[in-house]
């Protein structure tokens, strides 16, 4: 089970690296979702994937016997999932706004902030009071 999970994480990370390296932001988002889940799986596996060894202290003993399946990583993952979800929803909105304003999702053509020829566009002025 542990080995299977390790292979799965490896494949997922490889696929997500491929997607993240793409110039298209949409693919990048898919890569990000994938790598986030791969890392959650990794932390999950770190706790020990074993249905036979619950972290329960047997009668007449003071401590739980090693090795046992550690439940704490699941709490870590829970935190990571919640944070990841918030970041993901933000990044969706950000990319959509960037697409609306810059007219492209290809990072090659997203040069508004780093153009050397055009004068800087005015900053710190809100565009309009429309919905953000």
């Amino acid at each position, binding site marked *: 089970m542990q080995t299977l999970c390790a292979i799965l994480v490896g494949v997922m990370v490889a696929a997500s690296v491929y997607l993240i390296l793409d110039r298209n932001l949409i693919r990048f988002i898919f890569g990000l979702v994938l790598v986030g889940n791969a890392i959650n799986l*990794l*932390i999950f596996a770190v706790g020990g994937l074993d249905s036979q060894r619950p972290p329960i202290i047997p009668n007449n003993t003071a401590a739980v016997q090693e090795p046992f399946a550690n439940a704490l990583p699941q709490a*870590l993952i829970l935190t990571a999932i919640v944070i990841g979800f918030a970041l993901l929803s933000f990044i969706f909105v950000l990319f959509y706004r960037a697409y609306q304003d810059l007219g492209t999702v290809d*990072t090659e053509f997203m*040069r508004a*902030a780093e153009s050397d020829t055009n004068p*800087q566009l005015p*900053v*710190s002025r809100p565009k309009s009071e429309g919905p953000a």
Partner: protein
Amino acid sequence: MSGLLILPILLPLAGGAAVILVKADARRSFYLALTSAGLHTMAAGLLFWHIHLNGILATQIGNWPAPFGITLVADRLSAVMVMITAIISLAVTSYSKADIDASLVRRGYYCLLQILVCGICGAFLTGDIFNLYVWFEVMLMASFGLLIIGQSKTQLDGGVKYVVINLLATLLFLTAIGLLYGLTGTLNMADLHLKVPLIANRGLLTAIAMLFLAAFGIKGALFPLFFWLPAAYHTPPVSVSAIFSGLLTKVGIYALIRVFTLVFSVEMAYFYTLLPVMAALTMITGVLGAAAQNEFRRILSFHIISQVGYMLMGLALQTRLALAGTIFYLVHHIIVKANLFLVSGVVKRLQGSFELAQLGGIYRSNGWIAFLFFIPAFSLAGFPPLSGFWAKMILIRASLDIHAYWLAFVAAVVGLLTVYSMTKIWAEVFWKPAPVINHAAEPMTARNISAWMLAPIAALTMLTIIIGLGAEVVFRFAFQAAEELSHPEYYVHAVLGKR
């Protein structure tokens, strides 16, 4: 006593929440945020003073005993970082009064600012590595909001790059934490200090250390990982640039120092051959990048990178004196760099541009603003007797002490090139006659510059001069802080009690 540790996190959090309630009223938002920042500065000052007198302070949140619950710890390094954060927060809040439009305030500008400060202070004070990740996320979310507030085209473009690379950094950080937990079974940094040396699997440990280095390297804008910074930092309003430039990369550096003096304090030869090279390349690329720029804020942005190289240099050299140099450098740099960005905003007010070609003659029209630029700029470049000179001198001295002559040479040359960039700004913006085009754009006169903007600049400039003149006191403090870092036993003892 535990209140001292919680207040610097709680006050900005409460301030941020309170500001939301009066979001619609820009004036009240400002005064509420200013009050919160003022209280925060006082709380941070108290904490700083307490730590200075009594040494490391630790508290267990929810009364869970040490390795199990979340610990808040402040040693001298944390305390001074929290103190500086509070000062910069107060300065930037005051500056925002004139810099930030009411429409941006209504979108929650002050709330985001307060939450950002809350996240930064949390990161400085936590003693738990997963909690550090959470504070990083708090800080990141707020910084995302601040970076694209107003949503101009350049901001969105810079924002995409900033968000993307920082998200990847946090994912690397999370992976490293997960693996480290798998190896050691603990997340408490003091406990990690005891458990990591017992790990037999050195290969995996090195891999984890590298993941931490990559994650914090992205945050701190170190050599091969810095490209997001000059793409993003010049796009938001000046107040936001200033607080970002002062604090965000330094949180990355702080995390590097903490993790590599406390958690990975064991022999890591490979790592310590890599670090000096990274430090040197960071310094050089940053300063050369700055030399090629012709926009006020982009020059300053590239200089952040080269300065971060100096801080890394102190960590790379590993001696106590070098660490003291890094801490001195952190304090000096945060104040000076934020101040320079604030000055760039005043220049923009006066002449309507950040492009060097379109600026000029400020020395003639507003000599005192030129003076306010001159002090931090030449402190950054390392002119005696300003703060930057002492910071650089300690670091170069530390590298000479252990015969790392090439690193000392690089540091000195980079200092010289910094002078070049600063004189370039000086000559273009303040010295040369004002170009004719400006007069058509109806430049603002000095009277239009609000005292809310000038007061923080003057205060930070004064602070630079004070640090420069009172260098001995600051150095003694930095040396004590470095002493604590090189003896993690104190930290462990404060957190875990006697072992």
